């Protein structure tokens, strides 16, 4: 490896380094959750951190999401900067009351007297044959709730740097890490020292069609854009990154260039985040559109266990490319 090439790493390692750096940088920061200490995390994100940082900073909790998320809220109000790991978003439903009725509301209901500088990390998404109860994509649900900021790091850089920005936010922030991304390898530019948690980002420029996506669907969408480019269709890919509040301006700007939009969202189609993005476009860029808006979402079924059925239920590069093709070359 030459000295100038950025070091290669994985998304998992980027998450680990983010937690480690945050704990080392600020005595108020600690991590707690199920199996985060001795087991090293259900997706091995926190492996080795207990040994290095000690039990005060890496805390295993009982199997009670409501209790430890509530404890995190209390710690945040009391001046700490907790990172709470909920194994997967599937289990976060057990803590939904704490997240929705306490974390999101207390700053408002207290008239600003209590901030809740809490960060909750959770894994999301399907693709590893974990069956219907463990394959949900609930980030779209959480993006419905005022008072929360919802992040979906889809790149190694965002996995490495979004956490610090989230801890700086005085309000609760939820970070959704897609389970299919943890093993993703790539380069991490050491020159980048931080990222914003406000803006969507253009991951690929193009002029024929805009593909709006986030999280685990980003790289499927990028693959679709490659396929389309080989056919002479230049797709612009927008990574939303921040699902709440949505960076509508970046989307609208892109629609003004391409006039055609496909929204890719692993959530179910009905009442999805994709529906919200589509509606924003209708509200703000209706007259720019030269084709109907299309969505590629998960099939409206509980995610199947069988691998071929599971893959068929999820957005895939082929279905994304087909949707875009149908807008740019409808007669072909």
């Amino acid at each position, binding site marked *: 490896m030459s000295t100038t090439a950025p070091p290669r790493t994985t998304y998992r390692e980027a998450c680990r380094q983010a937690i480690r750096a945050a704990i080392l940088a600020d005595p108020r920061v600690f991590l707690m959750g199920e199996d985060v200490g001795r087991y090293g995390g259900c997706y091995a994100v926190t492996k080795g951190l207990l040994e290095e940082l000690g039990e005060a900073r890496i805390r295993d909790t009982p199997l009670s999401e409501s209790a430890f998320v509530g404890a995190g809220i209390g710690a945040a109000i009391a001046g700490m900067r907790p990172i709470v790991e909920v194994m997967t978003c599937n289990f976060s439903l057990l803590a939904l009351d704490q997240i929705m009725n306490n974390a999101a509301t207390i700053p408002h209901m207290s008239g600003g007297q209590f901030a809740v500088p809490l960060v909750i990390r959770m894994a999301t998404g399907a693709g590893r044959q974990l069956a219907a109860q463990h394959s949900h994509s609930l980030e779209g649900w959480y993006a419905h709730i005022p008072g929360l900021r919802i992040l979906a790091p889809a790149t190694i850089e965002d996995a490495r740097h979004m956490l610090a920005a989230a801890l700086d936010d005085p309000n609760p922030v939820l970070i959704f890490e897609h389970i299919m991304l943890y093993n993703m390898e790539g380069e991490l530019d050491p020159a980048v020292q931080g990222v914003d948690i406000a803006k969507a980002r253009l991951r690929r420029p193009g002029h024929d069609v805009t593909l709006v996506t986030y999280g685990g669907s980003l790289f499927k969408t990028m693959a679709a854009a490659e396929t389309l480019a080989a056919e002479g269709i230049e797709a612009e890919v927008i990574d939303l990154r921040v699902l709440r509040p949505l960076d509508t301006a970046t989307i609208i700007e892109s629609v003004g260039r391409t006039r055609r939009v496909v929204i890719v969202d692993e959530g179910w189609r009905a009442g999805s985040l994709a529906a919200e993005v589509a509606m924003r476009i209708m509200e703000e860029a209706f007259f720019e559109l030269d084709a109907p808006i299309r969505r590629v979402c998960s099939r409206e079924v509980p995610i199947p266990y069988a691998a071929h059925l599971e893959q068929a239920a999820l957005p895939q590069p082929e279905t994304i490319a087909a949707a875009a093709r*149908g807008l740019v070359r*409808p007669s072909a």
Partner: protein
Amino acid sequence: MNDFRMPSLGADMEAGTLVEWKVAPGDRVRRGDIVAVVETQKGAIEIEIFEDGVVRELAVAPGSLVPVGALLARLEGQAEATDAAPAPAPAPAPTPPPAPAPPASMAPASLEPPARPRVTPAARRRAAELGLTLEGLHGTGVAGAICLADLPQARPLRAGGFEPLGMRRAIAAAMGRSKREIPHYYLGQSVDLSPTLDWLERLNAGRGPSQRLLPAVLMLRAAALAVAGSPELNGFWKEEGFRPGEGVHVGWAVALRGGGLVAPAIHHADRLPLDALMAAMRDLVTRARSGGLRGSELTDATITITSLGDRGAESVLPIIHPPQVAILGFGRVAERPWVVDGAVVPRRIVQITLAGDHRASDGHRGGLLLARIEALLQKPEAL
């Protein structure tokens, strides 16, 4: 059945490209309605129809190059159209008079409402901006919708509106012909514009910027009034000789950005009061520069005025635009020593010039016209 043919939009026009139909078969048209857009060397021109009737057939498709005089459409005249309409059902009891029958064009062959064409929002907006109708377009977008790519001109039709090379050729042909055929005589008159401009400045002081009048509009008004009293300078020289114009339609020369010029007509300029004339001039200049002139504006001018403006030369010896027989030139207003009541005083002077066609008029008549303009300009409050 009457034929509607490609009109001549200038002495040197041989053909024009039909850009767009503004009507469809079955449409009722009235004299003066804009029925088509034709691209000529002078840009995209809206073509008016000269009679009332109902469009029966469009003979050429958009994009075709059509020679002057060739068939564009067939029109059913008023009487024929009425005959062709189904006779109203006889009223069983004639005592209460039946409601008037609908006009012929309101009785279409099919009673089914036409299917609403699918048009994407972007295409609909672009078409509206360009003044395009969507009738007859074939949609290639999703679900057969008309999308941006289906609009007749992907490039903005009237951005600039004029094709520089073609315009240069048109000017060369017209001016060459003028200098070959027309025996010009030239007259010039220096006019003290100070009282006029003093009056104008007082008037403008009480007005908002958009309501103010330009000095040019005073000169245009004075010239139009004067020309109305000089019929032998207002009209056309045809093979059979001079034919006076029916009304004073002043061709106002507009320099185009990027070169070239066009002198569309302000119809009945002598009948427009100052504010209306100012509005007409602004409108004409805007449309001349952006495209969107009408055929009648390019053919109807009975005399041309060229005004050089603030940054122009002090005087101009203009060239008559055939088949017209005269052209007036206004130079730049410049402060000069002037003798008033035996004393030399600074005054704002404009050189007004006239080129006349000696076949149609003599210098004496031209001199009277200039004197009349000067006299009118001395009493701006009466303009």
